[in-house]
């Protein structure tokens, strides 16, 4: 990269500027280390990562794994990290689906669809995400208590404790296995199926078969296949409870993210040359076939790169959960900082986790982009 010839071509002034900059950076870094030592010594904090083994002694709102207040910091941070990934990935999937629907509606020729989708985008894109999330949260916690819960067909209940939905009676680790299997199947299908349509068909059919097989074979003896939530005394039993924080987070981020993704999709569709649509129509294809076999495959090439930016944005946006007490990584880290005082180590963990996740997401988008690239176009 940097050869001796580059140096020889620089003037003395240019070399001096660079040395000055490097010295400045070093000065800032060493100055920061020096005053950190002074300040931490004054606070009586020993630096290092040994605090990770200490138990925390405090609780928080949401966890996918078993937890207790005796958990060490390491496990609590891991739970926070998993919560961020969990909410982030679910929001990414749902926002992408809704965004494609919205974008296609905005692009459609039908006046009604155009009007309603542009109203949607105008509302949800132009209000800060954090405001939308706290608003949703306030709405949800003002729902009636469990005894007066709103119910949908006596299977789904909405109360101020969250939303209760029917659930498969499978143990959690089997569910995790199912999700993993479905994701692997999806990756395999995209790699080897040859066309997007066939990949989608293989993935859908395979996932449904997997779920049905798992439900029939693995449900513990003596339990119904599906457990329904039921009111027992003051609380619900059975089913799956989606806590108020999780629902507010996911719905808020999905509605906001979908407005942005909708604009990305609309932009991508608008870039497809009009002649292609007309060619499809003159071949006698219906409007769905034109959209699915001609316009969307062409549009995807310009949609994927900005879509990847939106995915990274959504992952980062999970941090607003702290405003409603959702225990994502940011929440866990900031609580840990107040409780343990290990500020520098915890901030390093937080930054490292986000760098890792966003790097992985960016790699996934690059891979997708390379898969979808038109042969003979671009580099």
């Amino acid at each position, binding site marked *: *990269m*940097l050869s001796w010839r*580059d140096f020889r071509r*620089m003037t003395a002034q*240019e070399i001096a*500027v*660079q*040395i000055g*900059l*490097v010295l400045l*950076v070093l000065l800032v870094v060493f*100055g*920061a280390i020096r*005053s*950190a030592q*002074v*300040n*931490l010594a004054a606070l009586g904090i020993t630096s290092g990562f040994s605090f990770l083994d200490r138990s925390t002694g405090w609780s928080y709102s949401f966890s996918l794994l078993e937890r207790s207040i005796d958990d060490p910091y390491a496990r609590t941070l891991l739970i926070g990290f998993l919560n961020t990934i969990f909410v982030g990935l679910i929001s990414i999937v749902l926002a992408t689906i809704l965004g494609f629907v919205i974008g296609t509606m905005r692009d459609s*020729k*039908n*006046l*009604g*669809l155009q*009007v*309603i989708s542009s*109203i949607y985008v*105008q*509302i949800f894109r*132009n*209000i*800060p*995400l*954090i*405001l*939308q999330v*706290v*608003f949703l949260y*306030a*709405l949800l916690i*003002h729902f009636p208590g469990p005894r007066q819960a709103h119910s949908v067909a006596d299977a789904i209940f909405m109360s101020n404790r969250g939303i209760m939905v029917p659930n498969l009676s499978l143990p959690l680790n089997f569910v995790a296995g199912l999700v993993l299997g479905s994701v692997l199947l999806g990756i395999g299908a995209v790699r080897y199926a040859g066309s997007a349509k066939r990949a989608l068909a293989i993935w859908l059919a395979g996932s449904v078969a997997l779920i049905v097989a798992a439900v029939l074979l693995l449900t513990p003896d003596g339990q119904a296949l599906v457990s329904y939530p039921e009111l027992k005394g003051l609380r619900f039993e059975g089913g799956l409870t989606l806590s108020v924080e999780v629902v507010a987070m996911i719905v808020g981020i999905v509605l906001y993210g979908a407005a942005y993704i909708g604009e990305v999709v609309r932009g991508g569709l608008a870039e497809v040359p009009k002649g292609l649509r007309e060619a499809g129509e003159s071949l006698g294809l219906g409007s769905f076939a034109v959209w699915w076999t001609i316009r969307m495959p062409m549009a995807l090439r310009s949609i994927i790169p900005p879509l990847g930016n939106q995915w*990274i944005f959504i992952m*980062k*946006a999970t*941090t*607003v959960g*702290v*405003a409603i007490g959702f225990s994502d990584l*940011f929440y866990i880290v*900031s609580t840990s*900082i107040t409780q343990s005082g290990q*500020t*520098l180590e915890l*901030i390093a963990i*937080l*930054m490292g986790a*986000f*760098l890792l996740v*966003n*790097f992985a997401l960016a790699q996934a988008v690059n891979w997708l982009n390379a898969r979808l690239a038109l042969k003979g176009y671009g580099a």
Partner: protein
Amino acid sequence: MSAAPPTIGGLERLKRRAFHKPLDGLVTLFVAALLAWLAWQAIDWGLLRAVWRAEDAALCREANAGACWSIIDARHRLILFGLYPFDEHWRSTSAAVAIIATVILSCIPWFWTARRLISLWIAGFATYYLLMEGSPLGLEQVTTDKWGGLSLVLFLFSSVVLLGMPMGLGLALMRRSRLPMLRWVASLLIDFIRSLPLLTTLFTAAVVVPILLPDWLQGDKIWRIIIAFSLFFACYQAEVFRGGFQAIPNGQYEAGKALGLGKWQSLGLIILPQVFRHALPATINMVVVTFKETAVVIIIGLFDLLASAQAAFGTGDWVAYYMETYIFVALIYWAFITSLGRYGEFLKDRMKQDDH
């Protein structure tokens, strides 16, 4: 040049767009009915059955009462001005007007030269600061920890844009510099900040930086947050400027050389004016996003619009009227963001026409 298409009447156009096929007609009618129903619900609740004045707050508890705007009537000063001293609210109002006027004026093409734009923003910002702080003008001093509500949001927004814009330009220039050290430092900083959530950056400025700096360098929390936010803005804006630089053909640089201009002269006289022009739509987009993102400072403990809204329904008899308060705040944000966004769209269209 093709022949002009036959002109179509308004009714015929509506028929083609809304009732092209039977299914289209059905969808259009369904959407129209849904929107009409939603609009009616909103009007009925928000206007017809609403209670408006603070004195009538008791009426809000009646069974058929709609929105209780009494809370806005009673608490709007808290929401808009936060903890700013009550008797000095006129200062906060004028300061906010100064910032809004600055933003509006900078939308007018006459101001679009570097010198005019910079003087305008410095003048607007100074007016704001002098009015809010007060002591240099001989008014009662109000320290930054008392600033809140809408005025604080506008302050954060304008100072971030004002500081971040030159920082972004500097980073963009460094990133495309011929000197490898400059390039590396800028790329590292830009990529690092852009992979982190804004909240992490701001939180670091609020909580971690005091540990890393000696006492005499720390300054107020609000200034640390503004500097970190500006850095965040600058890293994104640098990428916007980079896009602008990429749109400039090499011939432009060579033209500068051929005229005998030095490196900095040709940058300032030939390249940058074109870069700004190319980057303008994306820059406005960035400014809109920044306005929206200021809302997260509530988490770092600043008393912004959202925090003052929560304080407004947080006490006494007003607890039940959280919805009205949030809608009021959402409308304020929406109005600002939509008008900025609309202006950006208008500008994009105008520039497209100029190109032809």
